[in-house]
Structures are given as structure tokens and as C-alpha cells.
């Protein structure tokens, strides 16, 4: 029993990270109908920004873990929000009206530029970097189940963040504007919504969520590396698709669903765990064939 709890906990941590990335994809698709393939690498950039800030602060003599953590998270989210907004401003918006394939290609290349830049310009960037443990590391052993306090905190923080994003989209004026742009850009414009501003804010919001996922990844694994965004990006995108691209709750569901598939692939199936991604993506392909609109189809519910 306790071993199952451990698997659920492992899966939940993965699911939370995937969900945070997937929400970004879904937000971008909602407002602009584009797929931002540099999203995963924006996440990696956020994680490295966090690490750089931590190194700087510790060198300045800041020792309090709580203060460090707060500053690191703020710095990473701000830096990544700006980066996300810049991608929207200089790469995505100028291509509005061009075939969608162009946006896809441009962001894909931007992702490679970001990834390789970290590898080349961050000192020792081609090797994994140690990420500090800023959360309390104590744990409670319940049989086979090792419940770590930092994991609980990360899960709680992720939940709060996702709930906050959901509230922001459904309950605030900004959210109203985002939903308006998502539903009908022309009408939203005539109603006085500043389209450009909303797009930039949405990209900043989605990227900030990715930054949190990046920091969470760093705190969870105590290690980040330049290519971390590549697979997280693909998985986040797949999660957004199986959830139903453009649907916030679908993205969250998709994230946890994918993590569950990976855990099942590694644990319960009678082949080498190296095939767990083959299994998980295989199920995604099958699901897309069966439910092309995703688990929560775009038509049946309101798009972000």
C-alpha cells in the first residue's frame, strides 16, 4: 500500500510540472492560435536565471533560505515573463497573418537558440548544474513511502498557482479580456480591448508559469541542465493536446494524465522501463485518433 502512495506522489510531482507547462501552451493557443515551440526552452532559461540569481545572492552573503527562495522565484518568473513577452512581441506578432507553419518554425528555432546559448554561454553549461535545496529537506518514512516536506510544499504551491491562474482567467477584467480575444479577436478589438497588450500579457503569464515549473524541477531534482526544456516542452505540448488545446482544465488534466501513463509504463508493464516514454506517447497517439478534440473538447466548453 505504502509503495503505491510513493508512486502516486512521484507521479503527482511530474504531473504538476507537466500541467504548468501545458497551461502555457494552451494560453498561447487560446489568444493567438499559435503553438510556441520555444516554451520548453523558455522554462530552461527561467531555471538557469534562478540559479544565476541564487549564486549572485549567496556571493553577496544572503543566507536566509526563505528570502533566497522568494528572490529566486521572483527573479526567475520576471525574467521568463519578459522573455516570453519578447518572443511574442518580436517573433510571433510580426508573423500574424503569415501561415501558422512559419510561427511554428520560428519558435522552434528560437528554442534551439536559447538552448544552445545556455550550453555555450552559461559557465560549464554543457554539464548538469547543481540546483540548491532551498526548501526543508526533512522527510517522514511511512513504510516504503518516503514523504518529503519539500515535495508537499512544491505540490501545494503548484496547486495554488494553477488555481490562481484559473481565477485570473475566469474572474478578473484581464481574464475577461483574454477570453474575449480568444473567442473573437475582431469583436474584442471593437469593444476596446487592447489586443497587443493582451497578447503580450498572456505570453508573459504563460512563460512565468513555465519559470515556476523550471524552478520546481530544479528544487525537486536538485539539478538542471541546458536541454531540460526539450522533453518537458514536448510532454507539455502533448498534455495540452490530449486535454484539448485551448482549454485550461484540459491542460491540467492532460499533464497529470501523462505523468500517470509514464508511471504505469515504468512500473506496471512487463517491459524495460526505458520504454515508458514509448508507451506514454503511444497512448497519446491512440487517444488523438479516438478523440481528436482532446479529453475535454474545445467545442463542449469555453475556450480560455
Amino acid at each position, binding site marked *: 500500500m505504502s509503495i503505491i502512495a510513493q508512486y502516486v506522489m512521484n507521479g503527482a510531482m511530474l504531473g504538476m510540472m507537466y500541467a504548468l507547462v501545458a497551461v502555457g501552451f494552451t494560453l498561447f493557443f487560446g489568444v493567438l492560435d499559435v503553438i510556441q515551440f520555444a516554451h520548453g526552452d523558455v522554462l530552461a532559461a527561467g531555471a538557469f536565471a534562478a540559479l544565476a540569481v541564487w549564486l549572485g545572492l549567496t556571493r553577496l552573503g544572503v543566507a536566509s533560505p526563505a528570502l533566497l527562495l522568494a528572490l529566486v522565484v521572483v527573479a526567475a518568473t520576471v525574467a521568463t515573463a519578459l522573455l516570453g513577452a519578447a518572443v511574442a512581441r518580436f517573433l510571433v506578432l510580426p508573423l500574424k497573418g503569415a501561415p501558422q507553419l512559419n510561427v511554428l518554425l520560428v519558435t522552434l528555432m528560437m528554442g534551439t537558440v536559447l538552448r544552445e546559448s545556455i550550453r555555450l554561454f552559461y559557465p560549464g553549461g*554543457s*554539464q*548538469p548544474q547543481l540546483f540548491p535545496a532551498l526548501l526543508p529537506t526533512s522527510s517522514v518514512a511511512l513504510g516504503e513511502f518516503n514523504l518529503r516536506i519539500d515535495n508537499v510544499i512544491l505540490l501545494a504551491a503548484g496547486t495554488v498557482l494553477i488555481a490562481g491562474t484559473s481565477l485570473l482567467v475566469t474572474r478578473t477584467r484581464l481574464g475577461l479580456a483574454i477570453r474575449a480575444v480568444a473567442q473573437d479577436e475582431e469583436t474584442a478589438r471593437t469593444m476596446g480591448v487592447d489586443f497587443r497588450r493582451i497578447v503580450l500579457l498572456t505570453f508573459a503569464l504563460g512563460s512565468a508559469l513555465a519559470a515556476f515549473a523550471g524552478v520546481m524541477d530544479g528544487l525537486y531534482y*536538485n539539478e538542471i541542465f541546458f*536541454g531540460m526544456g526539450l522533453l518537458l516542452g514536448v510532454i507539455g505540448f502533448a498534455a495540452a493536446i490530449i486535454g484539448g488545446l485551448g482549454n485550461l482544465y484540459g491542460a491540467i488534466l492532460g499533464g497529470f494524465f501523462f505523468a500517470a501513463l509514464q508511471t504505469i509504463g515504468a512500473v506496471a508493464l512487463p517491459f524495460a522501463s*526505458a520504454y515508458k*516514454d514509448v508507451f506514454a506517447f503511444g497512448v497519446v497517439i491512440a487517444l488523438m485518433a479516438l478523440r481528436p478534440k482532446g479529453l475535454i473538447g474545445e467545442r463542449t466548453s469555453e475556450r480560455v
Partner: protein
Amino acid sequence: MRIILAALLFSLAAQAKETVRIAFIGPLTGGNSAVGLGGRNSADLAVKLHNAGPGSKYQYELVVLDDECKPDAGVQMATKAGSDRSIVAGVTHYCSVVAMATVDTFHRFGLPTIVWGAVLPDITYGHDFKEIHRVNGTMINQNETNAKFMAAQGYKKFAVIHDTTDYGKGHDKYFTKFITESGGQIVGDFGVTADQQDFTAELTQIKALSPQALYFGGLTPIGVRIRSQMDKLGLNAQFDGTSGIVNDDFIKALGPLAESVLAFREGAPAEKLPGGRKFLEEYGKQGYSNPPEAYGPFAFVAADLLMQTIEKTGPDRRKIIAGLAQVKDFDSIVGKITFDDHGQNTVPVITKYVAQDGKWVLWEESEYARGSRKLRGK
């Protein structure tokens, strides 16, 4: 005046000698270039020492080629060296995938080569080509030493995680073979992809099997993740690694968690080798901008062995191959060298390492061997 005259005479004498060209092939650019440049410099040093020394019949020239640690580039460079008839032999490759890819090329051109760094057994054992030799040991020797050592330390139950490349699978195969022969038992064996991030599912399963030690066959990046996630799940087994993790990055990325990790590597630190001090002294005199790195001494020995063989046989590819087949108890700075019928050195040095206080320390010199610190999981 006399000095100038002597120098003039010397250079005349040198010019009178026939020039013999040998190739050096290794990764000079890319992620493995540090080791490649160290190997290049070491081979260069061997050539310089030989040319400066008395009594050699030939003047040697090193032709340096870059394989980028990529099979396609490696085959190109092997073809370049093989098709150039003025090159009579080669000191070839650090990366196993590249060394594996070029075996056929060297055979086709009949170019005798000595591998100076790659550890995959099949490079020498996967064929019957007489051209290919190797001075360093293979992962077979490494795992034999590892298994015997672990058994002697009293470890019986092992879990294995290996990556699913040839490198990881080879380690898995030979470690499993030798540890079972030594009376050990593998309770779980997990193949993982070489860029996997999350190992919690595998490690949770392993924890339930409660092994005393976890053997890891793979390279630094995932080794770091596995060690760190073991700690998160409260899996307190001894981490038993391979040559793939013996580098500073592994310890830097793990911090205090690296403590007590074991690893094994072909060769030994240069200063511990029989003629290592002399080698390092001469290396230092040349003012190279890179250190020789772990495999520099092997590149040095490979070049030296080729030149000594050429002195006996003359600069003819076929005769050199026949000459290399006779190599037995050749004294070198990496210990005695004897080639078996596959051209593999049968008496390679394997060194045991343990991570202690943020450094890779020779087992024999560690506090663990002295007993003042204890390995895990016993």
C-alpha cells in the same frame, strides 16, 4: 661557435634520416575535446622525445586529425589516413562509437592502428582484423575488478540501472556476469534512456527490492540524477559506478551527496603510473596549454610503441602489423603491455576510486579503505 656547429651537424643528421608519418585521430573539438587534446599532446610528446633521442633510424612526423567524437567524421578521417600511403600507422580514437565505426575502414586500407582510449570490448574482440590494437583495458576488465571488489567488501544483493546504449548495455552484461560468478545476486535490472530525467519510478521499485548496492552503467548526467533521486526516496544503498562518472562534473553537480560513491577506470592517474612522473615532467616542459587528462599516457604509449616497432620493422604497414603481433611484456609508463591474438592488451591497469570530501580519491589511499569511514548499505 662550437654549439652552432653541433646544432648544424645535428640538423644535417636529422635531415638525412627518412621521415615516417603516423596519424593521431581523436576528438579535438566538441564536448570530449579536453581528453582529445590531452591525447594529441601526449602523442606529440612521444614523437618529439623520439626524434630528439639518440639512435633512431627515422625522423617521425605526427599527422593530427579530428574525429569530433562522431562516427561519420571518424570514418572520414580514417579514410584520409588510410588512403594516404605516406602514413604508415595510427594512434586512434577515444570515443567507443567512433572506434567501432572505423574498424572496417582501417582493415580495408591495411593500416595498423592502436586505440588509445575507447573501452568497448567489440573494438578489438568483435572481429578478426589484424590491424586493430588497443593499449588501454576494456569494460570487461573494469567490471571484473568492480565485481571482485564489491564481493570482497561483502556486498551480495545488487540492483542495476544502465542506459540502453551499447556502452550501458555492455557494462550491464559484464558486471552481471562477473558479480554472479563472485556469488552476488542481481535483484533488479533496469534499462533507461540516456537522457532520462525522472528515475523515481525505477528507484521506488528498487527500494522495495532492498538491495545493498546499486550498480550504475552509464555516463555522468543521468548518474547525477539517479544518485540525487536515491536520496530523495530514502534509498540507502551503496552507489557503484563505472568509468563513465569519474570526472569532476559528477562531484560538482552532486555536492555532498557524491560522498562514498565508488567508480572504476582503466589506467591510473599519471603520477601513480610506473613512469608517470617522468612523463608529467616532460609534458610540463613542452608548455602545452591543456593537461594530458586521464588517457594522455595511453596515447603516449601507443605512439611510443608504434615508433619502437617501426624502428625494428621499417616503415611498411604490413611489416608493422607483423611486428605488433609480437608485442609481449613491453615496458611502458602504463605498465607492461602484451597483445593477445585480437590485438588487445591483456594486462591493463584498473584503478578503484571513491568520492571523498568532494574529490575522487584512490581507494587504497581513502579513509574508507582505512576503515575510518564506512560505505553504505552493509
